[in-house]
C-alpha cells in the first residue's frame, strides 16, 4: 500500500483538474470536475414589510453558503455583477453575465417579499450561455415569515440547483448532523443543520452519551449511554422525543452502526468477557455474533451500498487497525498495515472508507491523528487533513462529497466540515467540546 494519485473517469466528463495537489480523489460524485462558474446575486426585495430586510439577508447568505459549500461551483464574486440585480427573468440581460468579467455559466436569481405574514420567494436558474432557452429551473416558495423558514427556503432552492447541476446527486443543504456535546455539563446527543446552524440538545439523560448514529429514515438515534446497567445501546425516537426501549445485555455495549436499510444494527458488546461485534434486528431480538477474539472490536460501519460488508476496528494484533468483513462475520480482511487506525465510515457509493489514522505511532513519532480516505478495492489511500491536532470520527454526508469530523486543532475538540478531497474546511461548532459527528440522510 502506498501513497497514490487517483485519476479516473469523472462523472461529468473528461475534464481534469490542474490542481497543485498531487493527490486526487475520484468520489464518483463530481468532485474534481471542472467547477461550474455560478453567479448568485442577492435576491431582489419586493415589499419591505417588517423584518423583510433581515429575512432577505438570511436567505441570501444561506443560499450563497450552500452553493459555495456544495463543492461543485466556482462562485463568481459579487463585485463582478451588474449594478441592478435581476429580480425576474425579464430583468436578465444574458450579456451582463455570460461574458467577462463575470463570465458565468449559470445564474441563480430571484425575488422575495413578505405579505400577510408569509415569506414569498421566486427563484430561477439560468444557463446564461444558452441564449435560445436559458431557463433551467423556476421555483416558488411560500412559508410563514421567520428566520428559520428563510433558511429553509434557501436550503431547498440550493438543493434544487445542486441536484440539477451536480450529476443528479441530491444536495445536503437540508440534512442534519448528530453529535455529542458537553456544553450542558454532561455529554448528550445534539443535532444541528449541516452548516452548523440550529444547534439543539436532543437527550437530557444527565449521564454520559456517546456515538450517536441516526437511522437511515431519520426517525431514531442509536447511541451508547451509561445506564444503571452500565453501557447500553440506547434508542432515541426523534418522532416521540424520548428514549424508547431497546434490549440490554451484560457487559459493555457501545458503538452502534446502522445498515442502510435500517433493519440491522451492528454494535460492540463485552458480554462474553471481551468486546466483540454483534448484529441485532433494529427492533430488538437476539444478537448474532460476528467476531470472537480477545482484542477489542468496536466501531462497525456498514457498506451502505450493499449492506454485505462491515468495516470495523480491532485490537486483535496490538494497536487498533481497520478491518473489513462480510456482514455475517466471515472473510475478515485487515486493510491498514501500521500505526493506530480507528473510526471507519463507509462512503455512500461503497467505494471508500474514511478513518482516523496515526500512521507513525510510537516514541519520537509526530503522532498526529489525521483523516484518511482509502479506496477499498485497491487499498490505496490519501491523507485528507494536514492541519495538526487530533482528528477523528469522520462521517460521510449522504451526497458522498462531504465529510464531517472532529478535531482539536484549535484547542478544544470541535466539529469541522470538508469536501471529500480534504479542501474547504469549515468549523461548525465553538461552544463546549463537540465530538463524534454522524451525518443523517435527512
Amino acid at each position, binding site marked *: 500500500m502506498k501513497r497514490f494519485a487517483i485519476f479516473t473517469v469523472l462523472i461529468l466528463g473528461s475534464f481534469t483538474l490542474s490542481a497543485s495537489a498531487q493527490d486526487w480523489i475520484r468520489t464518483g460524485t463530481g468532485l474534481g470536475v471542472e467547477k461550474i462558474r455560478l453567479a448568485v446575486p442577492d435576491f431582489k426585495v419586493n415589499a419591505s414589510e417588517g423584518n423583510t430586510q433581515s429575512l432577505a439577508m438570511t436567505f441570501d447568505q444561506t443560499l450563497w453558503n450552500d452553493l459555495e459549500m456544495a463543492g461543485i461551483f466556482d462562485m463568481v464574486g459579487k463585485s463582478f455583477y451588474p449594478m441592478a440585480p435581476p429580480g425576474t427573468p425579464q430583468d436578465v440581460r444574458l450579456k451582463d453575465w455570460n461574458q467577462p468579467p463575470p463570465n458565468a455559466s449559470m445564474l441563480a436569481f430571484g425575488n422575495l417579499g413578505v405579505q400577510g405574514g408569509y415569506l414569498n420567494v421566486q427563484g430561477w436558474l439560468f444557463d446564461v450561455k444558452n441564449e435560445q432557452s436559458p431557463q433551467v429551473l423556476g421555483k416558488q416558495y411560500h412559508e410563514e415569515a421567520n428566520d428559520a423558514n428563510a433558511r429553509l427556503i434557501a436550503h431547498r432552492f440550493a438543493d434544487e440547483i445542486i441536484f440539477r447541476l451536480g450529476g443528479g446527486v441530491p444536495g445536503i443543504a437540508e440534512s442534519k448532523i448528530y453529535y455529542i456535546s458537553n456544553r450542558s455539563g454532561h*455529554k448528550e446527543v445534539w443535532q444541528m443543520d449541516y452548516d452548523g446552524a440550529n444547534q439543539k440538545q436532543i437527550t437530557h439523560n444527565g449521564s*454520559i452519551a*456517546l*456515538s450517536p448514529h441516526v437511522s437511515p429514515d431519520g426517525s431514531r438515534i442509536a447511541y*451508547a449511554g*451509561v445506564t444503571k446497567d*452500565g*453501557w447500553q445501546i440506547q434508542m432515541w425516537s426523534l418522532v416521540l422525543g424520548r428514549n424508547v426501549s431497546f*434490549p*440490554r*445485555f*451484560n*457487559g*459493555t455495549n*457501545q*458503538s452502534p452502526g446502522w445498515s442502510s436499510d435500517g433493519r440491522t444494527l451492528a454494535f*460492540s458488546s*463485552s*458480554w*462474553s*468477557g*471481551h*468486546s466483540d461485534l454483534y448484529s441485532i434486528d433494529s427492533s430488538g431480538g*437476539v444478537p448474532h455474533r460476528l467476531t470472537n477474539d*480477545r482484542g*477489542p*472490536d*468496536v*466501531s462497525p460501519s456498514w457498506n451502505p451500498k450493499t449492506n454485505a460488508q462491515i468495516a470495523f*476496528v480491532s*485490537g486483535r494484533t*496490538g*494497536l*487498533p487497525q481497520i478491518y473489513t468483513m462480510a456482514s455475517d462475520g466471515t472473510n475478515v480482511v485487515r486493510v491498514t498495515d501500521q500505526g*493506530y487506525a*480507528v*473510526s471507519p465510515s463507509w462512503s455512500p457509493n461503497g467505494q471508500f472508507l474514511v478513518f*482516523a489514522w496515526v500512521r507513525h505511532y510510537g516514541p519520537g513519532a509526530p503522532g498526529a491523528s489525521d483523516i484518511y480516505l482509502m479506496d477499498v478495492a485497491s487499498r490505496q489511500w490519501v491523507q485528507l487533513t494536514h492541519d495538526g491536532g487530533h482528528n*477523528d*470520527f469522520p462521517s460521510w454526508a449522504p451526497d458522498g462529497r462531504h465529510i464531517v469530523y472532529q478535531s482539536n486543532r484549535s484547542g478544544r475538540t470541535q466539529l469541522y466540515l470538508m469536501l471529500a478531497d480534504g479542501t474547504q474546511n469549515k468549523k461548525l461548532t465553538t461552544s463546549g467540546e463537540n*465530538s*463524534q459527528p454522524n451525518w443523517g440522510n435527512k
Partner: protein
Amino acid sequence: MKLSRAKWFGLIVALAAALAVSGCGKKKVATATPPPPPPPPAPTATLTANPNTINAGQSSTLIWSTTNATDVSIDTLGKVGPSGTVQVVPSESTTYRLVAKNQSGTQEATARVTVNPPSAPAPLKSNAGDAELFMDNMKDVFFDYDSYDIGGRYTAVLQEDARFLQAHPSISFTIEGHCDERGSIEYNIALGDNRALAAKQALVSMGISANRIKTISYGKEKPFCTESTEACWQQNRRAHFVYGQ
C-alpha cells in the same frame, strides 16, 4: 436477554486459564544480528533503587543502565530495554536482580528495596466503616499504553487487595476501567472495559466471588489527571476500585 452470570463466569475462568497457558500477546522483539567477529566486549550493568527504603504502599524507582548487552531482563519485570526507569510498589522487602547478556558473557546487578511494615499493624480500625476501610486498603492497578495485561508488579498489588477482600466478605464493589486521553473514544471504552475485566478475572482467580464485583469502563471520559504528560497519562491508565455496586 441476559446471560447467566454463572455461565459467563465459567467461560471467563476458562479463558483466563487458556490465556495463562498460551501466554499470548507477547510482542516479538526484533534483535539486529551483529556482524560476525570480533566478539563484542562483555556487558556491563548497574541497577539502583531510589529510595531503597519505603513504607508499605509507597513506591520506589528502579534505575538501570547497561552497555553492550543484547538481552536485558529484571526478575519479576521480565525483559526490559538497555536502560530505563520503572516504578515498583513491592509489598515486602524485595531484591531486584538485573541480568544483562550478550554472546561474550553475562553481567548481573542487584538492588534491594526495604519495605517497612505498617507501623501500627494496619488491620483494622474496628470502628471505621467498610467504605473507609475499602478506600484505605484497596490499591488500584495501572497499565501500559494500549495494554490490558496486568503487569508483574500489579499481581502483588492485587494479591494484597484480594487478602483485604477475603477478610471483608460482605463488601461488594465496582472496578472502573480508565484510559489516557490519547486514542479514540470508542476504542478506549473497550480498552477500559478490558482493563476492568482483567482486574476482575485476576481477583476471581484469587478466590474472590465474581458476584461481589461489578465492572464499568469510563474509557477516557473521567480522567484522574488532565495534563498531557506521560506522568498524567500513566495515572489515567488504571483499574480503579470503588466501594459499592
